């Protein structure tokens, strides 16, 4: 078994961004792997850039963290200079500048999502290479391969907030079931005119898919049992 603990930290990942009637829902799994070892089973891949714009990170953990740190800094300055909250389009553009100009060195795919008062809820996908594509929904990461057909069939215009979140959770959960590099918990972030809501769905509470088994009683329970009771004479 080739563990290779020196391999760069990558987020195998499934990341999703979906627009709905009034805002956006971002979703991601929580697995960060180093080679074949899960380095962090509860990572948070949905990072805040501003009060109203978040980004889903995939690919190299180091590259995506550094890019989002720089863009957060630039957006902070931009907000001060502009005098009002930055738009989602500007955030996406700043990410794209870094991703495109450093395309030889970086290996990270990002999905920018947020809400602003001019355009409402918007999702921008920025895959490897630095293209920017404005989409009604975007998927990324290694687990996204298993979701293209699912979204073609399941996504529709003008969903409600609840429908959109259910769709995202279902999709991430399906990808986790099939992709070895995705796992852990499902995190979602809902952004609309009222603000931001973070949700958390533990892995063992997700719906079971084809051939998935119920979780068995853990043998670890004997550790907490307290030992056998001594015989009484």
């Amino acid at each position, binding site marked *: 078994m080739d*563990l290779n*603990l020196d391999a760069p*930290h990558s987020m195998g990942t499934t990341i999703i961004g979906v627009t709905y009637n009034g805002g956006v829902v971002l979703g991601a799994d929580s697995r*960060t792997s180093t080679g074949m070892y899960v380095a962090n089973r509860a990572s948070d891949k949905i990072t805040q850039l501003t009060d109203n714009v978040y980004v889903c990170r995939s690919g190299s*953990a*180091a590259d995506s*963290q550094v890019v989002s740190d720089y863009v957060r800094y630039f957006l902070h300055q931009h907000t001060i200079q502009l005098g009002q909250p930055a738009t989602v389009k500007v955030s996406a553009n700043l990410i794209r500048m870094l991703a495109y100009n450093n395309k030889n060195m970086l290996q990270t795919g990002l999905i920018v999502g947020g809400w602003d008062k001019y355009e409402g809820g918007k999702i921008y996908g920025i895959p490897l290479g630095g293209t920017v594509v404005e989409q009604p929904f975007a998927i990324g990461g290694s687990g996204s391969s298993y979701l293209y057909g699912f979204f073609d069939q399941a996504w529709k215009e003008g969903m409600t907030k609840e429908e959109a979140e259910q769709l995202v959770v279902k999709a991430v959960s399906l990808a986790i079931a099939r992709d070895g590099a995705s796992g852990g918990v499902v995190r979602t972030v809902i952004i609309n005119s009222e603000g931001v809501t973070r949700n958390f769905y533990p892995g063992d509470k997700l719906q079971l898919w084809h051939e998935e088994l119920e979780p068995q009683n853990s043998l670890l329970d004997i550790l907490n049992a307290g030992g056998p009771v001594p015989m009484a004479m």
Partner: protein
Amino acid sequence: MSQSAVDVPPKGGFSFDLCKRNDMLIQKGLKAPSFLKTGTTIVGLIFKDGVILGADTRATEGPIVADKNCEKIHYMAPNIYCCGAGTAADTEAVTDMVSSQLRLHRYQTGRDSRVITGLTLLKKHLFSYQGHVSAALVLGGVDITGPHLHTIYPHGSTDTLPFATMGSGSLAAMSVFEAKYKEGLTRDEGIKLVAEAICSGIFNDLGSGSNVDICVITKGNKEYLRNYMEPNPRTYVSSKGYSFSKKTEVLLTKITPLMERVEITEVGEAMEE
């Protein structure tokens, strides 16, 4: 023959001057010395009142144990310590450097250092070297915002966790944590768990061994328990003592302590115009 009179200071970054020489030597058959790596098991966990860091004490050079009792828990600030795994020189150098930077920052701001500051400085440095500085770190401390524990990987990515392990023995130690960790551990429970995790690395990983070092950091206080546990004592020591053969002569040892030469200068008269 003209020589430039002024030496231009190097611009910084790597200097590749000796690469050609090294290539030539390797071609001639010279084997380069291997790096001194700390095989290592390092761990950290957050307990009720703060952070506990733990490490083993074996430093390896290939298959040989180079140092049986090295220190892997490095000082960063009075309230922040950092365990290091990977190439020993890299972990020492990078923790020393950031420790100095934190001190300068304390002087400038007039405040105690925060763990996140150390994290950002380390992450920036490691990322700019693209993973060639082989330092995998567990950074822990308690600052004004509370207890924090972070892991930093050689490529510059970081994670923030309630319990973490790094190094070649990380899998052995993580299995102990995953089985027994819970939130709100007391100091004694936490120390016991950390010691257990490090022992698991010491006994099951070839790159880790010797003793257990522990560092407990709480608000306003830190305890560095060097060699908290020594589960690998030297078992056989000859009771008869060691005899030296007849030809060996023990010379007289004369130790002359160096005395400080203190010259007291009389305070002279101040110069007057």
